[in-house]
């Protein structure tokens, strides 16, 4: 009975114009999004790896130079694009990808693509993830809102029930039909894309990406499944097809469009983000404080770079000054980033009414484009900067401090530059992402189960009212 119902419904849906038009549009958009994302990624990755190599080469061959001046030129490091960023660019457009590691300054990741774009960027980014998160639920609603109510209105439900079709078969048959419509649209594109991505990767990274894709499939499956069962439940519960449509569309608008914005405004009130000015002032204050303390304990000086500290101690002083700042930097940036993460965790609870919020976090996490993975990169870049800084200071203590007033005539050579290792950053593995986002997945699973239960309840009630 289940198979018959599913086959009949699928036939009805495929013959209906709604699936053809809406589905066709979604597939075209998906292909466009994939092509554009792919193109961008190939270009960015080749540019960045070339840039990175050039930069390190320039560092090694910078000739003879005072080490502090070398740290002035510094080093650029670029964030590699995770391969699944094509699928979900996540926060990518709103965070930078380039860090200039220089002396004295916490390296900030700069150059957000959104800065080089117009206000249109704020409408959103056309990505496969966006299509699956926003448009596919709408498609499910549009093709499924009347799947039960229409049978009732036409009187075919009465006939169906008279044949002794169990409610369970009816529910799962209809669900299977709806799900296969969605499947027909996205599975071929998705599969081809997955194979292409995995095939392009070096063998070592393949397993990780395959795991990621599998988890993503699970997450999106639960999300779309939630909408399938919700649609059926509402269609069975509502008095008419019209009511069912209005209710479902209302939910879709509220859940995918309004909830994410409201959630981010609300968590901003709960855990306020400091303004740049406040943040900079606090940071400068803390760094100066730490600096003063360090200078007075190490050199008995009242202020940093006090005239009482002779030039023969400047290498040592540089080290003391830098190291004093590390604590303040870690604390301030740590606090800011913790705020961001707290805001996001608080928003995940909104997933209980609007599953798109939970899914979005999960999807970005698994695609490698969420904030925790951006933070991981920023931390690695800062560690590299400190490495350079320490090597430079040690070398100054050893060589330049002996020269007294001729401190700045000291020049280090290629041997010193070669002691700074090349910046090698490995993207965190899938377990890192899962550790951060398992709660979202659990939430999606709960929502899915709830929607199945609701649909079962809706179809187990007397259907002929």
């Amino acid at each position, binding site marked *: 009975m289940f198979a018959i119902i599913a086959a009949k419904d699928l036939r009805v849906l495929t013959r209906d114009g709604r699936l053809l038009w809406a589905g066709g549009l979604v597939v075209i958009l998906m292909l466009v999004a994939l092509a554009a994302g792919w193109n961008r990624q190939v270009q960015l990755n080749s540019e960045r790896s070339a840039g990175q190599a050039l930069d390190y080469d320039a560092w090694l061959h910078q000739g003879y130079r005072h080490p502090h001046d070398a740290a002035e030129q510094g080093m650029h490091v670029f964030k590699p694009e995770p391969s699944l960023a094509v699928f979900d660019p996540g926060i990518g457009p709103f965070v930078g990808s380039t860090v200039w590691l220089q002396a004295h300054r916490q390296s900030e990741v700069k150059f957000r693509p959104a800065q080089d774009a117009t206000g*249109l960027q704020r409408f959103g980014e056309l990505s496969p993830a966006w299509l699956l998160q926003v448009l596919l639920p709408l498609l499910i609603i549009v093709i499924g809102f009347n799947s039960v109510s229409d049978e009732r209105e036409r009187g075919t439900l009465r006939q169906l029930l008279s044949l002794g079709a169990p409610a369970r078969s009816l529910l799962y048959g209809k669900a299977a039909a709806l799900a296969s419509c969605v499947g027909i649209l996205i599975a071929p594109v998705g599969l081809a894309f997955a194979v292409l991505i995995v095939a392009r990767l070096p063998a070592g990274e393949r397993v990780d990406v395959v795991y990621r894709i599998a988890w993503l499939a699970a997450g999106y499956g639960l999300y779309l499944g939630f909408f399938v069962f919700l649609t059926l439940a509402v269609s069975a519960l509502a008095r008419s097809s019209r009511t069912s449509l209005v209710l479902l569309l209302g939910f879709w608008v509220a859940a995918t469009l*309004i909830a994410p*914005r409201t959630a981010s405004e609300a968590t901003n009130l709960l855990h306020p983000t400091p303004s740049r000015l406040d943040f900079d002032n606090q940071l400068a204050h803390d760094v100066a404080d730490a600096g003063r303390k360090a200078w007075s304990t190490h050199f008995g000086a009242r202020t940093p770079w006090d005239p009482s500290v002779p030039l023969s101690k400047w290498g040592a002083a540089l080290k003391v000054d830098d190291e004093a700042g590390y604590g303040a930097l870690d604390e301030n940036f740590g606090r800011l980033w913790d705020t961001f993460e707290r805001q996001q965790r608080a928003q995940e609870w909104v997933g209980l009414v609007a599953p798109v919020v939970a899914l979005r976090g999960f999807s970005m996490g698994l695609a490698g484009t969420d904030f925790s993975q951006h933070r991981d990169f920023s931390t690695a870049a800062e560690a590299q900067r400190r490495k350079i800084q320490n090597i430079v200071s040690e070398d100054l203590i050893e060589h330049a401090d002996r020269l007294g007033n001729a401190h700045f005539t000291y020049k280090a050579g290629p041997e010193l530059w070669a002691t700074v290792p090349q910046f090698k950053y490995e993207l965190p593995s899938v377990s890192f992402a899962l550790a951060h986002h398992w709660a979202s997945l659990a939430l999606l699973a709960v929502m899915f189960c709830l929607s199945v239960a609701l649909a079962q309840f809706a179809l187990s009630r007397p259907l002929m009212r």
Partner: protein
Amino acid sequence: MKTMQPRPLSTLSLIVLHEARILVRDRTLLLVCCVLALMVGYGLFVGLAQATLRDRMVAQVLKHQQETQTANSGMLQSVLAGQTALIPFSNPANPAAMAGTLSGRYATMPNAPLAALAIGQSDMMPNYYRITYLSKVQFMYDTEIENPWNLLSGHFDLAFVIVFVLPLLVTTLGYNLLSAEREHGTLRMLCSQPLSIATLMTGKVIVRMLALLAIAIPVPLVVLLLIRPEARGAEQLVLMLSWSALVAAYTLSWFAVAALVNTVGLSSSTNALIMVALWTILVLILPVTMNLAVGLVSPAPSRTELANRTRVATAESLREYEDLYSADYRYASDPEALLVKNERIEVPSRMRAFFLAKQKVDERIEPLLKHFDQQLLQQQKLVDRLSLLSPAMLVNEALTSIAGTDSRRFLAFKDQTEAFHKEWRQYFSPRILESRAMTMRDLSSLPRWHWIEMPGSEIRWSIWWRAILMLALASVLGGLALARSSRRSIE
């Protein structure tokens, strides 16, 4: 009811009255208006909070500037009088220190008076820059701090309520203008009266539209007039008028679409589906697709390339001023060397090198930086043209330019800041090169920042043509709907 005689105009007013009564009784209108009022209120609150935050930042920056200036002049006085021990990097008599670490100068852009109406780009682009001799790459790319997740979600501001939500509320009220009458069996009855369908539809739309606009337009404007005194000028009133025209035209055109859809004679469900499909295409899909298209047609230059060029330029300037960088540095052991003699001061050669090197870096990467800005302007022009495709894009552009939070204004700010940065360097350049000590007079004649607002006529023009275009669109669609309803049988 029976006292009224059917005259042409009074038929319309009769329908309006009748519709109003029905809508009030079945509570739909009340519900929709409450939802709208809540959203408008919340959107305005978010916008006001953001505007206040930005105001506070500018005020703090200016205060900080004032304090630094006072501290600098106090310090300079005591240095000139020989009362203070000299610290090489923080000696205000030294022009290189004054141009760099001691400079308390900021370039600031105040909020436009109507900033609370749309957040636009203001949560991302900075509204102040700290001006020193540092290279542009070092300070021009700082952005406002905001959780990237929130930037991605977008803000719940008034522009969002108008561009995204208002059409949906119009749909809720208007998807079954005629179809409901038909489904209830009352359309037949109405057609038997001396009443044209066009009049019927006009009456229905008038009630619904007035109800929505009575909340969407006056509430924000009155609140703004009450709590932001700077919004009370004549120019601002004209802007508010254009804002109202824009919102009214946008609402009207969605109602016209609803009316047009209703004249086709399909069922209510189908009408709702068509309306939502149109909304999805015009408000969701077209803008993101156009964003992609703009990026493809007129791509921003590569930031990686900028990083590479910066490195090369920095390396070159380090090499060029190598002698200055590595000169003996005796000021720590001999602070007397930093004393002002005959209005001259020895600028430590390393500091001179810093100044010159940064200047060189900027000169070298200037063309590439210019290219970024040009490309952004190019993109903006493209957006102006493409926005003709979707009323949502058109209105969004206009709303942000009324609020002064559009990319153009931020780009103008960046431009002016660059010019000021140049002026700042030019002021110090001869002093540093000729070792001229800073005097009290110099301190009061440092270059001052003045924000030059974008020409009002340009903004007004860019807003009005959009408003007029929206009105034209609304009247074409409305005219079509009326023509169809009078010519065709819609039973």
